Each structure stands twice: as C-alpha cells, then as structure tokens.
C-alpha cells in the first residue's frame, strides 16, 4: 500500500472520530432545546389531553402587575415546582386528574382548589379529611389568598407569587 493512502486513512480515521463526537453533541444539543420545551409538563388533566403545548404563552399574558402569576410549592415532596397561573382554576389532591397531583399521606383525593375571581385567587377546601390551612387558619369557605402566604395541605406548602 502506498504511504499516502495509509497517511490519509490514519488522519481520516481521527477526523471521522471527531466528526462522530460532534454529531453526538449535535444530537444532544437539539435534544436539549427540545427538552427545554418538553421539560415544561403541561398540567392538563391526564384523561383529556389538551393540545396546550402549542399555545402556552397566550393566556399567561392576560394580566400583569400585583396579581399572582405563579403558584410555587415551597415544602413537601414537590418542593420547587412552579405552576404558571392562568384563568383556570387549579385543583389539588391525590387524584390523577388534579392539576397539581400531590402524593402525600395526609392529602385527600380531591383536597382543595384555587379559583380566580376578578384577579384575586380564592382557596376552597373540597371536603378534605385533614383540612386545608391558609397560614395557620383552617379554610372553611372560599378565602382570598394574599401573595406569599402559605397554603398548607398535609406536608405540602404552596404560595402565590407575582
């Protein structure tokens, strides 16, 4: 074999090796950005499967200012989870079709819900066994929820954030 062919093969192999590395990195990169999109779990009820993935931005823009825009889980198993608030109510409980499914021994299947009314969110207990607490007070009827005040359900704690 001529020397030239071997030299070309030698360096060709090395270059091919790096091409492979960069191709893998490229696939990972595309995956990363796709992942950034798909990392946002749409909190739609499972049974229905809404095509909300395509138009997530629209409802979130409706109101700004001092209104609550996020529901943040501050304690419990889901700590760190954020839910972007829209116009729709949020149901909380162990049931699979809740907006926020909490796996907490002290939570009921349909524990509580958060309902918006004229820009103000109300928390309402849905007849849970262990009760819902707004800060330290037990929630008996629809109660307005101020920003930053913890709603306690079992071991889980939730807060509204602007």
């Amino acid at each position, binding site marked *: *074999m001529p020397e030239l*062919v*071997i*030299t070309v*093969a*030698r*360096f*060709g*192999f*090395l270059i*091919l*090796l*790096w*091409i*492979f*590395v960069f*191709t*893998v*990195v*490229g*696939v*990972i990169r*595309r*995956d990363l950005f*796709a*992942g950034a*999109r*798909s*990392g*946002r*779990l*749409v*909190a*739609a*009820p*499972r*049974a*229905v*499967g*809404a*095509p*909300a*993935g395509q138009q*997530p931005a*629209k*409802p*979130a823009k409706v109101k700004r200012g001092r209104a609550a825009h996020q529901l943040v889980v501050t304690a419990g198993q889901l700590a*760190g*989870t*954020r*839910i*972007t*608030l*829209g116009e*729709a*109510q*949020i*149901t909380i409980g162990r049931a699979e079709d809740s*907006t*926020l499914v909490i796996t907490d021994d002290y939570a009921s299947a349909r524990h509580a819900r958060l309902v918006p009314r004229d820009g103000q969110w109300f928390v309402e207990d849905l007849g849970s066994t262990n009760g819902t607490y707004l800060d330290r007070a037990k929630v008996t009827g629809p109660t307005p929820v101020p920003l930053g005040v913890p709603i306690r359900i079992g071991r889980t704690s939730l807060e509204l954030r602007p």
Partner: protein
Amino acid sequence: MTAAATPAISPPTGEQSGVRLARSRRNSELSLLLLAMVLVAAYQATIEATLLDTVTSDFWVPAAALTAVFLGVHVVVRFLAPFADPALLPAVALLNGIGVGFLRRLDLDDAAPADRADLATFAGIGGRQLLWTLISVLLAAGLLVLMRDHRSVSRYAYTLGLAGIVLVMIPAVLPARFSEINGAKLWIRVGSFSIQPGEFAKLALLVFFAYYLVRKREVLSLASRRFLGIDFPRGRDLGPVLVVWAISLMVLIFQKDLGTSLLYFGMFVVTLYIATERVSWLLIGLMLFFVGAYMAYVLGSTVGGPFANFYVRAEIWLDPFADPTDKGYQLVQGLLALGTGGLFGAGPGGGEPGILPEVQNDFIFAGIGEEIGLFGLSALLIVYLLIVERGLRAALAVRDSFGKLLAGGLSFTIGLQVFVIVGGISGLIPLTGQTTPFLSAGGSSLMANWLIIAVLLRVSDAARRPVASGGGGPAARPGGGPPQQLHGAPTEVIRP
C-alpha cells in the same frame, strides 16, 4: 445526520399528536449507530492497511457482526424503550467496536506474518471479545425486555444488596489459586475460565444503595453541627458510611485492589451526596478514603503482609522510573507508549503494543493511545464523558427518587472507573487493575457495563417519556375547531 426529527414510531399507546411534541429520536440513534459502525470498519481497514500492507476482502466482517448485534438492540430499544436517550447506545457501540478492533489488531500482531491475512473472525482475543459483545448485548436486551419499569428492581433491593456483598466477598475468601491473578484477588477461576464477580456486584450494590438512601434520605440530611460553614451530620447517621468504608478497606486489604475499593466507596458516597445534597458527605468520604489509603501505605511500608501490594503500587506511582525494568516496567512502558503516540499517534496498526504488559486489559488505553495519539484519545474520553453526561441527564429528568439515585450513581460509576484506570495509566494516581469500560478484553466487565447501559436506557426512557402517555386521550382532533377549554389547560408545571 437525518434531519428527520419526527417520531420514528408512535408510542405504544397510540397517542401521537396530542399532548406534546414528544420526540423519541430513534432515527437519530440509528444514524449515529451506523456512523459509529462505519468508524469501526474504517479503523479495521486502516489497521490492515498498515499491518498487512493490504486490505483483506473480509476486513468488514467483525464490524458487520457488531452492526448486526447493535441494530438488534436498537430494534429492542425502539419497541420497548422508545423514548430512551439517543446518544447513549451509539457512543457505547463505538467504544465497544474500537475495543474489538484493537484486540483483533493484537491478534494480527501475534499471528505469524503468513497467517495474518486469513485470521478467522472469531479467533484470538479479538474474536472472543466479539463473542462476548454478542452475549453482553443479548443480556442488555434481555434486561430491557424483563425490566419494563426501573422502579420494579427496587423490590429486589435487599436481595441484590446481599448478592452484591456475597459477590464481592467470594474472591476474598477463596484460596489464592482460585482467585488471584497478578496479585489481585478479584476473580473466580475454574480452569481457563475466569469471571470477575465484582463487576456485577457494582450494579447490585448500587440498586441497594439507591433503595436504602431513598428511604433514609430524610434522616441522613438532617442538619447537625455547623463547622467551618459546612453542615456535618449527626454521629449516629455516620453508621452506614462507616460500614461501607470498612468494607471497601477490606477489599483493599484482602483483595489487594485499590481501584475496586475506591470504586465501591466512591459509588456509595456519591449516591449519598445525590440523595441528601450535602457537600459534607463528599468531604467526609474523601477524608475517610485518604486516611484509609494513607494508613494502608504506612502499614505497607512497616508491616507489609496484606498491605504490601498497595505500598509497592504507591511507590511505583511516586517514581515510576526508579525501577524501570522490573517493578515500574508496565507503567513506564505505558507512559512511553503514550509519549510515542504524541499528538496524532503512529496510526492504527502502526504502534508497538506487543511490548506493553497487559495491553489487552488494563493498558488498552495506552496501547490505543500510542496509535491514535492525544487527538484520538481525547475523542474517546469525550465519548465517555458524553455517556456519563447522558446518564446524569436522565437522572436529573426522571421523576422518581429511586431512578434519580440509580441513574446518577451508575453513570458516576462509569466515570469514576474511567478516571481510575486512565489516571493510573497516565500516572495521576497509583495504578490499579481496573478494566476500561467497553474497551478492555474480558466478558465480565463487558457484560456488567452493558447491563448498566441497559438500566440507563430504561431510566432515560422513563425520564423523557411524555407524562400523558398513560391515558388514551382523543387522538388527532379533526377539523380546526377551537380546542375545548379545559380547566387545567393554561397552567403548566415547570420542573425545577
């Protein structure tokens, strides 16, 4: 590369256009896999061109055999883990293929020049490695078939933990003639056949660690005294760490193997760190390990006995050139090989791996390095890095704690093993007999590592699978009617 990012097949539930644009990326995996196999064939051809001065007409046979096997596992992944990570399988396939190619190159070197051209496909260590690859990939595929959900293994956590400890201990209690190879008691030898149970113990122990720590994480992450800005755990919570430390020290003493002991201990400490998110565990772990290793070194120099092996290795590491023809021979030859390779290497087939002791095993990285140089070696190291990164990524994304710990721990284990052996060869840490994952000759290591990859594929499938794929929602909504306003539709959970 295909730009076709459309889902290759519809997920089993048949729900496709519904909730989210979930991409399985199986086609990316397929094309990456084919590219990797082209690389392996090119490697083979270059070796033959250099060594034989001609390319035999069947140089492609090993590469084709590997391609067939990997395509088989690809099909299994396509149907059973459709959302698994697309980069994992091709990266591992490349390393495995290069390993087989290099071992075959060693066979060519050993064969008489007249016989070289018609070396059978399954002859020599290269052929055996090919066979082992086949078996390992079948095992990995079998694991994917059996384990449809990674959480199901947590049911056998205690059994696996016990099995792991037994596997670790067997070589230590066996008489040396059944278990000792090159001074390390890590094998079970029956005739010419030997297996390394410790390789399988890694996986078993990690399942146990993950399960145990998921249950105990709250206790273990309890804060206690704050010292130098770091939270240190309570004394009684240190128990399990000390037990694993003692076991790994015993591995160091009775099996005379620093690498394995470092691996077990590192595995546990990192899983503990992932579970509790406390840096103090890492510091405690490192401190314990260094104290243990230093004690073994001091005892080795004074008492000798079981510690002598470690002492000798540490001495070689401190000054490999003190005794370059006897004790330091292997390391010195390895360093010289890497040095000869230089930036671009001598070319596949152009090196002299024959003079490197254990080049098919521990020193395969130095042997390959001589031929592909720093340029090629860094590519291989990056491939390892990508495998570890994808594993950690799966750990980050998966939703259950057991899966997080399992995937995080396993991918870290692969990374640590590469570090231990490459660090040993390049003189960064004392040399220990570890196999280079997927490259080294040896069935045990290959099988165990492929099983790890199967678990990682399973976890990454769970991590990337769209949440809603469980319920059968209305498929493709006909017409352009406005989507029905659902009570939860505008909200979205953003994972931290």
